[in-house]
């Protein structure tokens, strides 16, 4: 019987190595795979490349990993969170690298890797400084920029429900980058609110089929990512 469930987040991050490229799912800090990222912090790997929409606030999860100096490079669309972050401090000191990618291009590059494509032409950024040095092409009268797929060694995501074969289901706006990220990393681990018996997730409600997921761990949301912590109640 296939069983992708793990007892602890430590097991899920055990294989991460120095220099790895890590997809970090979620959009906004409440949806980060906070417990997996904290386990990764504990593990102490370094020179990581992190792919995430933002740069992570505070001193836990992604913000903590960056504050600890474990991250060599961030690939993101919106790292300048208004609140100020560890990333911003390190970036201004020249101690962390940034590859800035428009949000839609970031999502599509990840999807392209998962879908086995060699790259695609997008109109976004054509004629702007974010297209500098990139191949462009005029197709049917419009200018496009060539973008290559973006692959990860590891993807860490947070989902709502999962079963033992790795099917994932998300609530509300939780899908975001998690869906493409699960398809495009060599090893994918999800922390979930709830582990349910096989068959409890209706086949129509599977948002990420188990084929894309290697390991599952049921764990409460990180205390700093709860509603109480976020809205101050």
């Amino acid at each position, binding site marked *: 019987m296939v069983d992708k469930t793990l007892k602890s987040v430590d097991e899920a991050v055990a294989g991460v190595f120095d220099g790895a490229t890590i997809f970090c799912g979620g*959009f*906004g*800090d*409440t*949806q980060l795979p906070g417990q997996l990222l904290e386990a990764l912090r504990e593990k102490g790997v370094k020179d990581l490349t992190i792919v995430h929409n933002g740069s992570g606030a505070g001193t836990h999860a992604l913000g903590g990993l960056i504050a600890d100096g474990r991250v060599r490079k961030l690939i*993101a*669309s*919106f*790292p*300048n969170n208004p609140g100020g972050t560890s*990333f*911003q401090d390190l*970036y*201004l000191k020249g101690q962390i690298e*940034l590859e*800035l*990618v*428009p*949000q*839609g*291009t970031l*999502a*599509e590059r990840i*999807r392209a890797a998962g879908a086995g494509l060699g790259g695609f032409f*997008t*109109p*976004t*950024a*054509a*004629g*702007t*400084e*974010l297209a500098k040095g990139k191949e462009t092409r005029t197709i049917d009268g419009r200018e496009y920029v060539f973008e290559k797929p973006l692959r990860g060694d590891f993807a860490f995501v947070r989902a*709502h429900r999962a079963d033992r074969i790795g099917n994932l289901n*998300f*609530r*509300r*706006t*939780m*899908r*975001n*980058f*998690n*869906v*493409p990220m699960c398809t495009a990393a060599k090893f994918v681990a999800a922390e979930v609110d709830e582990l349910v018996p096989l068959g409890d997730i209706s086949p129509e409600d599977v*948002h990420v089929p188990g084929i894309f997921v290697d390991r599952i761990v049921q764990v409460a*949301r990180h205390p700093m990512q*709860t*509603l109480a912590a*976020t*809205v101050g*109640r």
Partner: protein
Amino acid sequence: MSLTREGIAYRVACDLPEGAYVNLGIGIPTLVSGFIPEGKEIFFHSENGILGMGAIAEPGHEDIDLINAGKQYVTVRPGASFFDHPTSFSMIRGGHIDYAVLGALEVAANGDLANWRTPGEKVPGVGGAMDLAFGSPNVLVTMTHTTNKGKPKILNKCTLPLTAPHCVKRIYTDMALIYVTPEGLELREYAPGLDAKTVQSHTEAPLRVSPDCREMKVPAKFVAAAQVAT
């Protein structure tokens, strides 16, 4: 005399037709949803995966898993849908979002838009701004007509890095409503108490005055004595 921030948002809301799919950027654009009259059905898109977004969630009624692109806790309306980022940006880049209402730092006479990188900003961030500016067939800009030092923001040529070239269709400011046309900028409306000449004097790019040019019709509560802050 000039419009308040709410006045600018109100004027945009008047122009959104029923059934429109609309993405609102941060700042003044966010206010637009508050001025859609009851009964006019508009579908608001949030690029993190919502179509049919409703109001900000009431305190005590937030859902931890339901946020908008600005990371605020929001609600959804009946008939809403959730989806992932590739789908959300397919909507944007594929031209399906009828209107993108965006803030701006500068707009040029040819519709060039600069809104993603301020001169003083040391850590850059682009988010979904470029995708929206390139993708939507109707990019509507809302902003104060001039900087807080009184310098024009509607220019012959943008000085800041572009978000997208030739993308802006209309410019809604505290002083005026201006259309971007193939023949350059066209002044369509000026704020109550102003006139075309005054608007031009605060605008670097030349304005053609539309034959139909008129004073903007907005409720008096949206008209302020002085220029509003950004």
